[in-house]
């Protein structure tokens, strides 16, 4: 008989007790993985939205980042409303050309952003106007169809297409103009995936504007994106700012940190519950087997072997609980995202997160077994043998 087979068989001696310990660990592991997938996904999606995809940074009006007390008065006062469109438009088209000419700039793409509430819907549709050759700078990836080639064509974000129940070949009427849907895209940014994209000129015509809302900038090889963004801010003082200095970005970052802290707090509570369950299970297991441990000592087992027996049992319970917890965590996160409860958030699965979930749950199992194992190893053989 192998020592490890004795450990495994001991686990199955009291199935309901072992089930409780496994459940405790599984809840902990599921909480770490499930909440981690969602919060990491939320952080990644938001970051992506704010750093403008494949571009190194985005340039926006300085007033955008100054908040309600700033000179521009924030988001709202920079908007114009035409034909139902609410448009962010403050940068002249000529500024896009000027930035494109600056040394160190590989490419600069103007993007007009506007929102409109379509007939029969409640959520506003975010529309982007951007030239098709610059789509990659906004991290737009076509998952179906092709990009627009004329002013009557439009591509829809994955979430928007699903929400509007539209697909390639369908028509979409926006402000009395009918567009043919030629492509479906995704960006990994939950806000952008809820929108639609047409060419810059088309959106400018629709909204009766000439400028852009932001400029996506990619630095040329050998140029530091940081120094280039500083240079642009210095060239246009109090007029333009870059995404890295946005107070809105900082606020969003703080928000993500708060979400992550909340997620960790929930996880720690789940882990605490799991830990208590493992300790209680192993304590009960040791207590129930006091006499047996006395016999093992009487037949010559030393303290180390008793320790290894009890810790081994708790480690296996933890391993089974972790495995089940990972499946539950993945399952719950997948159900939440596929059922659109977590609207548009892409799960961010990473090896680091998996290691965190496995590591913490296993650690918990081992620590949970330590005290009961210590108690068992210190039992006096004569007292243990007298135990009823």
């Amino acid at each position, binding site marked *: *008989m*192998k*020592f490890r087979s*004795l450990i495994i*068989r*001991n686990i*199955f*001696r009291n199935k309901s007790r072992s089930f409780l310990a496994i459940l405790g660990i599984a809840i902990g592991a599921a909480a770490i993985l499930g909440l981690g997938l969602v919060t990491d996904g939320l952080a990644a999606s938001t970051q992506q939205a704010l750093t403008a995809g494949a571009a190194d940074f985005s340039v926006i009006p300085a007033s955008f980042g100054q908040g309600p007390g700033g000179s521009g008065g924030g988001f709202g006062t920079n908007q114009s409303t035409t034909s139902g469109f609410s448009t962010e438009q403050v940068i002249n088209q000529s500024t896009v050309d000027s930035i494109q000419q600056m040394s160190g700039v590989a490419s600069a793409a103007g993007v007009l952003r506007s929102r409109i509430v379509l007939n029969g819907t409640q959520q506003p549709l975010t529309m982007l106007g951007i030239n098709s050759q610059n789509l990659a700078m906004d991290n737009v990836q076509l998952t179906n169809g092709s990009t627009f080639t004329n002013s009557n064509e439009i591509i829809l974000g994955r979430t928007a297409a699903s929400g509007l129940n539209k697909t390639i070949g369908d028509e979409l009427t926006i402000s009395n103009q009918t567009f043919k849907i030629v492509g479906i895209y995704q960006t990994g940014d939950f806000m952008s995936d809820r929108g639609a994209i047409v060419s810059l000129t088309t959106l400018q015509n629709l909204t009766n504007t000439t400028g852009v809302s932001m400029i996506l900038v990619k630095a040329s090889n050998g140029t530091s994106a940081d120094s280039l963004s500083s240079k642009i801010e210095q060239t246009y003082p109090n007029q333009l700012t870059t995404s890295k200095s946005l107070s809105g970005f900082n606020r969003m970052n703080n928000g993500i940190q708060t979400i992550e802290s909340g997620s960790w707090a929930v996880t720690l509570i789940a882990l605490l519950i799991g830990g208590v369950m493992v300790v209680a299970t192993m304590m009960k297991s040791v207590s129930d087997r006091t*006499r*047996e441990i006395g*016999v*093992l*000592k*009487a*037949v*010559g*087992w*030393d*303290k180390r*072997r008793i320790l290894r027996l009890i810790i081994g049992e708790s480690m296996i319970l933890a391993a089974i609980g972790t495995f089940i917890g990972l499946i539950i965590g993945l399952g719950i996160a997948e159900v939440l995202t596929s059922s659109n409860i977590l609207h548009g958030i892409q799960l961010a699965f990473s090896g680091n997160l998996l290691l965190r979930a496995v590591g913490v749950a296993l650690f918990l199992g081992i620590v949970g077994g330590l005290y009961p194992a210590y108690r068992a190893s210190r039992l*006096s*053989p*004569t007292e243990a*043998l007298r135990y009823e």
Partner: protein
Amino acid sequence: MNNENIIEIKNLIKSYDLGGIVALDQINLEIKKGEFVSIMGPSGSGKSTLLNMIGALDQANEGSIKVAGYDLMENKDFSSFRSKEIGFIFQLHNLIPNLTASENVQIPMLQTTSSDEEMINRAAELLKSVNLGNRLDQVPTKLSGGERQRIAIARALVNHPSIILADEPTGALDSKMGDIILELLREIHKKEDVTLILVTHEDYVAKSADRIISMMDGKIIS
């Protein structure tokens, strides 16, 4: 049996509750290698406490006790001593219920050997010698009290101990089964050349030994 003492006890005192209860009072005892000794006395006379001292399951407060060359008054872990020198047989067989007869016998060997094959063969050999060769894979719950006690005897012998300590081995059995177990212990004593110390409160059991030590109130009276 030869003339060499395997157990030497001098002025041994064991008390509990800070000396309030004296379980062993000035015990002096010598037991020769290969001897079959029974320790007899009423309940509470100290016979099981003395057995626990000899098996290093408990430690005395005063005096000296040397067993198989080990000074048991030293302050150290005697698990290795128990593993090599001592085989315990309890009144309640104390087998692990979810393990088979063979696996129960192998339990002490987990501390002394890593060879699976050696453990399985040794357990089979011993179970065969106690007439349980056909019960190797049975769990204790499916066996009679006498069969369980025979497994416990096989377990006590598995590491080739020099001393077998049996605490009321027939106490939980009917007289017929008790006789069978007693006969088996006598056979093992002769065949394995071990020192056998048997604690009992029954006359007829005690009389099967080479020597009877009587105890009363923590003292050896004869």
